[in-house]
């Protein structure tokens, strides 16, 4: 009937089960933003609990929180700043990997930028560890490169 369309038309919820066996509910409209979940729904139907083997109970609630805000159009810069404020670099990485697995584009983009911002003034050693990269330069090669690009090393807090 002709009503004021003030609330979302679909209040259907989907059940998601994490890799460590916990179950979370999410609105169908939010699930649409996670392409992996949507594909599973298309294959398995929306009445079944969707299994997410590579996402765990630590990350999923945070992701659900993000998309809850997204469907009401309330994602602002302030919200995003608050969202990552208390997360350390490793926690962000885990969240980022989960966003990638779920094919949740908006969160993925936001976290890419956040990680880039976090790495901005970190040492080369830190970044290597973060990306899981093994250093195969000889000390001479490395110091020559560093000298050539000295301008890009200004302002870095070298640790260790």
């Amino acid at each position, binding site marked *: 009937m002709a009503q004021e369309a003030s609330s979302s038309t679909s209040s259907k919820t989907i059940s998601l089960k994490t890799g460590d066996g916990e179950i979370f509910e999410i609105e169908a409209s939010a699930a649409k933003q996670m392409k992996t979940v949507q594909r599973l729904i298309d294959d398995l139907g929306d009445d079944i609990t969707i299994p997410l083997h590579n996402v765990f109970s630590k990350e999923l609630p945070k992701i659900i929180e993000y998309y809850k805000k997204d469907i009401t159009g309330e994602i602002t810069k302030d919200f995003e700043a608050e969202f990552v404020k208390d997360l350390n670099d490793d926690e962000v990485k885990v969240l980022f990997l989960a966003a990638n697995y779920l094919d949740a584009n908006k969160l993925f983009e936001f976290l890419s930028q956040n990680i880039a911002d976090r790495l901005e003034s970190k040492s080369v050693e830190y970044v290597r560890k973060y*990306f899981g990269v093994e250093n195969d330069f000889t000390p001479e090669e490395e110091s020559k490169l560093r000298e050539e690009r000295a301008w890009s090393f200004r302002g870095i807090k070298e640790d260790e």
Partner: protein
Amino acid sequence: MTDAEPDIISSLPGHIIDHILSHLSIKEAVRTSVLSTKWRYKWATLPNLVFDSQCISETSEDLLDIKSKLSRIIDHVLLLHSGPIRKFKLSHRELIGVTDIDRWTLHLTRRPVKEFVLEIWKGQRYKIPTCLFSCQGLHHLELFNCWLKPPSTFQGFRNLKSLDLQHVTLAQDAFENLISSCPLLERLTLMNFDGFNHLNIRSPNLQFFDIGGKFDDISFENTSQLAVVSIGLYVNFESNQSRLHGRSSNLVEFLIRLPRIQRLEIQSYFLKYLAMGVVPVKLPTPCIDLSYLSIRINFNDSKEISAALCLLRNSPNLRELEILARPEEQPVPIAHHAYCWEEVCLSWPVMRVQHVRIDGISGIKPELDFVNFLLQYSPVLEKMAVKPALNAGPELVKDLLRFRRASARAEVTYLD
């Protein structure tokens, strides 16, 4: 507190790392060349090069020193970079002397660059080198504090979709030629310009138009796709100075050329310009797509009020309205009769406005009449927010709350 799966955490898949890489500043990206031999040239194919204040931390270094450092960095990066450059942005406070920028621009036109952004923060207008005008790969061009003098052989930018010019100097014919020879242009921003003051906008694909500056005249031709328009006329003119240029009604001519307009902002003195000539009650065709309207209005000028009402009357699908009162230094000589609201209210169509914002009113009669009118004729109004002028008295609130509302749900808030 470490997690249970350290191995998953420690190594990110390649394509994901590339994605993060594309968000790094140029400084950080170059640094990744030291991570490992595989990473040595990864950064060099990044498509976007942005040189701004992040590149050089301005400490108390000598100005010449900063300039030469910035110059060397850009040379270094451009030389090592390989592959296409999609975006180049140069925006630094202490921008170097002219010759370096000319040289880099020439290099970029050979890459060929798609987005070119140049911001000269201070000093004289920088003269854009001729080579930029033959860069046909450009999709987006953004210039701040520049002087454009296209060569006589300039045939336009065939692929340009977006143009943003602020604080620029450009001759009248050069301006017209530029606009009309970019057939794919969709977005045009022009702020604070000199060298031309007749704006004849001929642009078949234009969708977004944002302008603020001093001009005598503006006209549109073949602009049926324009959906978002914001115009600020920063110069006041005497009412006896005609801005009609052979037209009988600026308002009618203006709206006829914008049949698909969805969002319209009329700023500074532009409403005064539109009110010149005849202000009709009904327009030849209504603005059926207009859903957002923002007007800067002088409530002491009854012609401006007429123009505003004409817009309201002929926009059946307007949802959001913003009214910004423009206080005049001296009141208009009282030849202005009290505005005849009875005539207006006869056969006034139902308005579907849901949100209204009113800024800067002080409580003079024409303002109150207008607000009263809005409240009475907006049966689906949800919110009206009123922000008073600094010199508004406390009676204003009382007056506003007195008015009858057609919409039982209307929430009127007073922000002070």
